[in-house]
């Protein structure tokens, strides 16, 4: 997309936004709802807590450690009247224990002063620390009472002191109060009610996007503006993207307003400590906001895909009701106390529920990086896929002229054969393959099978994914396999270059991993390191043929077919080779981030770099074969170095993570790799020639 069409897209989105924001109904969901909802929720929450406390003649049991504190404290509180609650002091050894046991409601500790306070001495001050259980309503009431009284005492003492000598420039606060909360239970941090907050935020963001997405698609169709829009010389995808940007902006605005109102409500009502014992930091709010943005991007796309399908406002609403129910139910699942982001392995890839869970972990004070990254990446891919589907549905003949078209038209195989996949269908297959790869990576290791069987099952599954999904997409899109997967034969030169690269790159890659580890870039947990050590031992005991096939041959072949065959060919048609190479290699790197359910940051750089080399070979040769050869050799040698410690000597140590690659290997590798790259470079990319002859292929 060039600069001109981007700016047209921006102007189109601006017009859509102007239209939406002039509509009062949008303003209601956007501003009014959150303005009312959060204070009401806050009030309700507070009322709920207080209503749990017994009414009538209240009695507070205060735990103290030093008996002397009782007198000092009562003096500070002032005289109790009849309507005041009764106060009993209970000396205890450990305040927390007594609070946990429920023997007392609140504990106090006085610091900085042993005997009674000289009210007129401006230099004297006392520190009062109160403690209570975070879920005890009686404790909350008691604390509130104490705090009120101490504030009054502070004012009175200050007045007296000022009356005595008015030349005190900065009077110190006579009583400094600190409150502490004791968590009822360990485990998921934060109160149970705090886990409601992400769900509320996510649902409110959805609410904000619903109306504009119906209005801009089905609404336009109903009002008759869609037809004149389609009559303009602008592509359907551009029209849809403009609407997507507009809907997403409204969703994000709703999210921001909701988050702000929630924060303000929490701050004003003083519920912060109830909900977030560790406090709410700006960083946490920023992460939640970023997560909401990502979620808005995803859900706006889903909404647009659904509403683009509808031909009237009513029909769109009918479609959205099940979708909303579908959205709420996993949200409710996330409220169950046992459910955590890591626990059942599919949570990080389950749409919506993963965002809610991640937000909850962030609010509870920290999210695990690995599953967090899976959530972000998979949501990103889902958003892309949903936009792709929406652009196929939006303004389609069957939707535009419902009285004549049929929905099955949308899924009909195109009659005209294509040389390569559309970018849309390539992205769609990516969105299917990615979460499933994560699932396979973490799921299969847990199967009760022999190590060999696990290896073979994993191999079969990844082959089915990386080849099966694009093959299905190629069939549906009527893509010619030879050109769609770049299966055309390669000339000799790139093959020779690929062989040289294949045998020489692996010591460099091994050393790169060693360096990264020295730099502290490794995120491999110790447990996995041990597990890998065991696995390596297991592998040595297995037939080397099986190990080589499952870990080197098959992954190399299927990954090449998917990334450099299917995906690269789709990108190559509409992008400069450099961008096609970069995008495929970054995605290639991202796919390798997750292994066995762990996030391994050290794998990103080496695989991305390897992906760049493979993309370069694919570009120059115009064929997937040299890359397959390179990849198989590379993987094969790396795995062999781990399998045969004696043959590979020092190299084995480097691969296993116990030292550097010997210098002569590095130098030799670099030399051979350069020669290989130069040979590949000498091949002129002749794919253009091949392409133009394929383009005319029609049945």
């Amino acid at each position: 997309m060039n600069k001109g069409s981007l700016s047209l897209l921006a102007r189109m989105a601006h017009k859509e936004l102007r239209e939406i924001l002039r509509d009062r109904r949008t303003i209601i969901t956007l501003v009014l709802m959150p303005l009312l909802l959060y204070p009401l929720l806050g009030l309700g929450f507070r009322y709920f807590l207080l209503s749990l406390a017994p009414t009538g003649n209240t009695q507070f049991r205060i735990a103290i450690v030093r008996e002397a504190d009782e007198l000092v404290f009562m003096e500070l509180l002032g005289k109790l009247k009849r309507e005041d609650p009764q106060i009993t002091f209970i000396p205890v050894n450990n305040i927390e224990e007594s609070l946990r046991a429920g023997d007392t409601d609140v504990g106090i500790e006085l610091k900085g002063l042993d005997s009674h306070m000289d009210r007129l001495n401006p230099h004297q001050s006392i520190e009062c620390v109160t403690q209570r259980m975070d879920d005890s309503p009686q404790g909350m009431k008691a604390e509130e009472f104490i705090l009120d009284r101490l504030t009054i005492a502070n004012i009175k003492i200050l007045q007296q002191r000022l009356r005595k000598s008015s030349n005190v420039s900065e009077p110190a606060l006579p009583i400094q109060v600190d409150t502490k909360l004791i968590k009822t239970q360990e485990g998921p941090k934060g109160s149970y009610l705090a886990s409601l907050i992400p769900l509320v935020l996510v649902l409110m963001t959805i609410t904000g996007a619903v109306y504009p997405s119906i209005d801009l698609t089905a609404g336009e169709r109903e009002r008759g503006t869609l037809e004149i829009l389609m009559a303009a010389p602008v592509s359907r995808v551009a029209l849809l993207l403009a609407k997507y940007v507009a809907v997403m902006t409204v969703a994000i605005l709703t999210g921001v307003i909701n988050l702000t109102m929630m924060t303000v409500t929490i701050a004003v009502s003083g519920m912060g400590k109830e909900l977030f014992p560790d406090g709410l930091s700006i960083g946490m709010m920023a992460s939640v906001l970023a997560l909401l943005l990502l979620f808005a991007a995803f859900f706006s796309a889903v909404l647009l895909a659904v509403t683009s399908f509808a031909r009237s406002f009513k029909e769109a609403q009918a479609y959205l009701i099940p979708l909303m129910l579908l959205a709420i139910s996993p949200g409710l699942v996330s409220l169950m106390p046992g459910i955590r982001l890591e626990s059942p392995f599919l949570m990080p890839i389950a749409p919506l529920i993963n965002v809610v869970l991640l937000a909850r972990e962030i609010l509870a004070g920290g999210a695990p990086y690995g599953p967090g990254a899976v959530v972000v990446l998979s949501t990103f891919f889902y958003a892309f896929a949903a936009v792709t589907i929406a652009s196929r549905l939006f303004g389609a003949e069957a939707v535009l002229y419902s009285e004549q078209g049929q929905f099955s038209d949308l899924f009909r195989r195109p009659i005209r054969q294509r040389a390569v996949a559309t970018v849309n269908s390539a992205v769609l297959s990516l969105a299917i393959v990615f979460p499933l790869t994560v699932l396979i990576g973490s799921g299969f290791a847990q199967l009760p099978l022999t190590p060999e069987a696990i290896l073979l099952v994993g191999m079969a599954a990844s082959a089915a994914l990386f080849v099966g999904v694009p093959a299905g997409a190629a069939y549906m899109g009527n893509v010619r396999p030879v050109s769609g997967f770049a299966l055309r034969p390669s000339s000799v030169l790139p093959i020779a270059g690929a062989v040289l690269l294949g045998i020489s790159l692996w010591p460099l890659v091994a050393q790169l991993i060693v360096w990264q580890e020295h730099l502290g870039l490794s995120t491999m947990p110790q447990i996995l390191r041990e597990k890998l050590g065991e696995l390596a031992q297991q592998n040595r005991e297995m037939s080397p043929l099986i190990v080589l096939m499952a870990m080197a041959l098959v992954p190399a072949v299927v990954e090449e077919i998917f990334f450099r065959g299917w995906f690269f060919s789709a990108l190559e048609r509409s992008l400069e080779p450099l961008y096609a190479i970069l995008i495929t290699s970054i995605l290639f790197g991202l796919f390798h981030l997750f292994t066995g359910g762990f996030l391994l940051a050290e794998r990103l750089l080496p695989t991305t770099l390897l992906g760049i080399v493979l993309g370069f070979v694919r570009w120059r040769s115009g064929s997937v074969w040299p890359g397959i050869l390179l990849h198989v050799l590379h993987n094969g040698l790396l795995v062999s170095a781990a399998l045969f410690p004696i043959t590979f000597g020092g190299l084995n140590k480097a691969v296993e993570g116990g030292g550097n690659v010997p210098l002569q290997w590095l130098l030799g590798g670099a030399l051979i790799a350069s020669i290989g790259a130069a040979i590949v470079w000498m091949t002129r990319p002749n794919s253009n020639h091949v392409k133009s002859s394929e383009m005319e292929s029609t049945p």
Partner: protein
Amino acid sequence: MLIPELELPRSGAGIIEVRELTKRFPLHSGKELLAVDAVSFAVKPGEVYGLLGPNGAGKTTTIRMILGLLRPTSGEATIAGYSSDTKPEEVKRRVGLVSASAGLYQWLTVREMLLYFADLYGSPTAEAALELDRLTRLLDLCDLLDRRCATLSTGQKQRVHLARALIHRPPVLLLDEPTLGLDVLGSQVIVEYIGLLRDEGKAAIVTTHRLEEAERLCDRFGLMHRGQLVREGTLAELQAETGCQNLADMFLRLVGAAPTIARTAESTP
């Protein structure tokens, strides 16, 4: 994506050429509806072509295929040599569409709406402003420019639609029932303006049920019935062929008669 090499405009008699255009819609029963059946005709610059026929004859489907909003099952329509199937954007750039079923953006003002469409059609800002000025005077939109579209009357809306279809100065106009629902005065404005466009050398296809209006407005007529173009010619030619004095009588004969009346398309220039 499969993009064939840029096709050069073919020279032909008409700026609009329709060749054997056919559209079949699959029905839920599994059968097919033949909505447009091998329709062929051509319209020259400076000519207003009236596409007439009873409801359901296939006029609107034909217009939608000419513009590339619907894909023909077979056959082809071209505008200035560009096929609406393979080069829809080139076609759309050259066509202004006024359709009875079209709506306006409720929350935009007339000015915003018109300039937005000028932008969509790629008109430079300065040119669009000039054209807006010209159309405002011609179609008497002065008082409407800053009003929200939702507040306009039917007649006002139709004038805005005409302005919207013309803001990018297209050489071809497709007018599907442009006077539907308008009062006599409102229709008068539209009819007069279409006459002006003819003088500017624009080609237009008009569908309408107001036959006396069509008689005054159109240079040539195509009568459609059950998806077929059953008669074509100037008013004088049609009168001579059918022996009827006006379109209304021809129309009645047409609906009453069998659909396979001999085609007269070959006899027209």
